[in-house]
């Protein structure tokens, strides 16, 4: 299977929101098969409404369009290029991956069904492999963002993963709860995480398989490891069915949205995406 020659690849770097300075997020495409979304919303990288709607959503659109344009006839079926997406926090610091949602967002009527849930479930079922490069604390919504990815590489340094809603006396919105139920590796981890609000160190997160690998060397080290991981899994995108398989796997989450769930073939998924544009 041929991939685009590296010498013909033009690295892409797009700031989001469009025209913003400084950007809240940067989308880059450093190699033909690799995409990186770096979120940069302030010292603790909150997933503000703008980050969800004007950074993550359009970045995913751009990646998916570009990747779908690689479609070509293979020997026995249609094929797409290998590809993988890394989602990371601000690479210029080592403290936070993301500190989650803003209090104002959570209080806003309709925020979850209309803003958060659609973005997070899009990421959850994205048609190319996704890797969260957890380069710092991942709290609450930040941990959910990381769990929505297929894989997690975490810094081995001083950072925790936790769901801290229990300490605030708030329950979990349905999609968040469903993601925890389906992505956390066992009932005892679910109990410790959601009920006890346990702060998992990187070593604990690795031991219970909440994350797949640890990386030394701060944000740069985490990104480097994530890129190595991406190179191992990028071929999963090639047959164009990864997104549909994720939809099947995560039906329990999608069912909460109340939309019609369809499980398209690769060709249908491609057509549907183009129709939406």
């Amino acid at each position: 299977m041929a991939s685009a020659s590296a010498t013909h690849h033009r690295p892409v770097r797009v700031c989001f929101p469009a025209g913003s300075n400084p950007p809240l997020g940067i989308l880059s495409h450093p190699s033909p098969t690799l995409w990186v979304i770096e979120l940069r919303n302030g010292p603790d990288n909150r997933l503000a409404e703008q980050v969800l709607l004007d950074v993550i959503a359009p970045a995913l659109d751009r990646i998916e369009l570009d990747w779908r344009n690689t479609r070509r006839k293979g020997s026995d079926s249609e094929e797409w290029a290998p590809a993988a997406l890394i989602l990371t926090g601000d690479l210029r610091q080592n403290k936070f991956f993301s500190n989650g949602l803003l209090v104002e967002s959570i209080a806003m009527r309709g925020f979850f069904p209309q803003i958060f849930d659609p973005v997070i479930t899009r990421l959850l079922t994205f048609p190319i492999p996704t890797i969260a490069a957890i380069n710092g604390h991942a709290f609450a919504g930040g941990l959910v963002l990381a769990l929505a990815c297929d894989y997690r590489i975490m810094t081995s340094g001083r950072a925790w993963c936790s769901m801290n809603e229990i300490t605030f006396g708030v329950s979990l919105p349905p999609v968040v709860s469903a993601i925890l139920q389906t992505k956390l590796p066992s009932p005892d981890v679910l109990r410790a995480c959601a009920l006890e609000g346990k702060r998992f160190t990187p070593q604990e997160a690795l031991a219970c398989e909440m994350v797949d690998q640890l990386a030394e060397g701060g944000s740069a080290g985490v990104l480097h490891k994530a890129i190595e991981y991406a190179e191992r899994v990028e071929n999963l995108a090639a047959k164009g069915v990864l997104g549909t398989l994720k939809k099947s796997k995560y039906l329990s989450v999608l069912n909460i949205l109340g939309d019609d769930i369809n499980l398209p073939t690769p060709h249908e998924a491609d057509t549907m995406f183009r129709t939406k544009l």
Partner: protein
Amino acid sequence: MAMPSPTFPFNLPAGTSSAPLAIVTHPTPTLWVIELRHGADNRITTHLLLDVLTPALDAVEQDWRATRGPEEGARWAPGALVIIGALDQDKFFSNGLDYLAAIQSEIFFPRIFHPVLTRLMSFPIPTIAALNGHTFAGGMLLALSCDYRVMTSGKAWCSMNEIHFGAPITACTAEILRAKIRSPNVLRACILEGRRFTPQDALANGLVDEIVDGKSADILHKAGEFARRVEGCAVTGVWGIMKKSIYPRVFETATEFAHRMTPNEQQAIFQAKL
């Protein structure tokens, strides 16, 4: 409209002086204990569920809810509940339902047994089952409905032995098993094979959290230590609501409407019922 605060210790059924089916105690400001004493093997009957366990849970919940401060946005006190078999023996935690009697009644599972299990599954303070002996079938469901389990290291098994006496399990109890049991293979061994787990097996497979040497008093003591570790989780009043959120299928299949209420609403609803 509040009832007078329960005074501990007390016997159940209410008014029993000799041979109570349960003794409910409050040994520390943050710990409640329900000791079940229903005959030699602690069968879970309709009488035990309705006239003993339900009022016991009511009393504990009422007592804990009364700890909430009066000010706006106040918190509750830390708290935890231990449920244990009879303390003057070491053979049984519970031998499960009186199955033949249970199946005489159409309403037993949906209206009598499931409500107690789901009450525990969503109880507002951490619950610890102190398995001071054999834990079979309905007894194991009772144990799994609690948040944590400590078990004797001695001669006792836990199992779901329905497969061996030809009984199906309900959708709700299947969801409890699925919610609390670590993996498909353990679930298979448990439900389909009716495997008898020794304490060591149970620990290795995640069915219990800790095993304890000694007699019932020692199991109770260890459960109390466990309780101290987790009692603080109760203070924001959302422990039970959070459980309803992360174990939704249990409540959906018990036909209970899993309304996502706030701690304030839940407090008010409970007090209105009294």
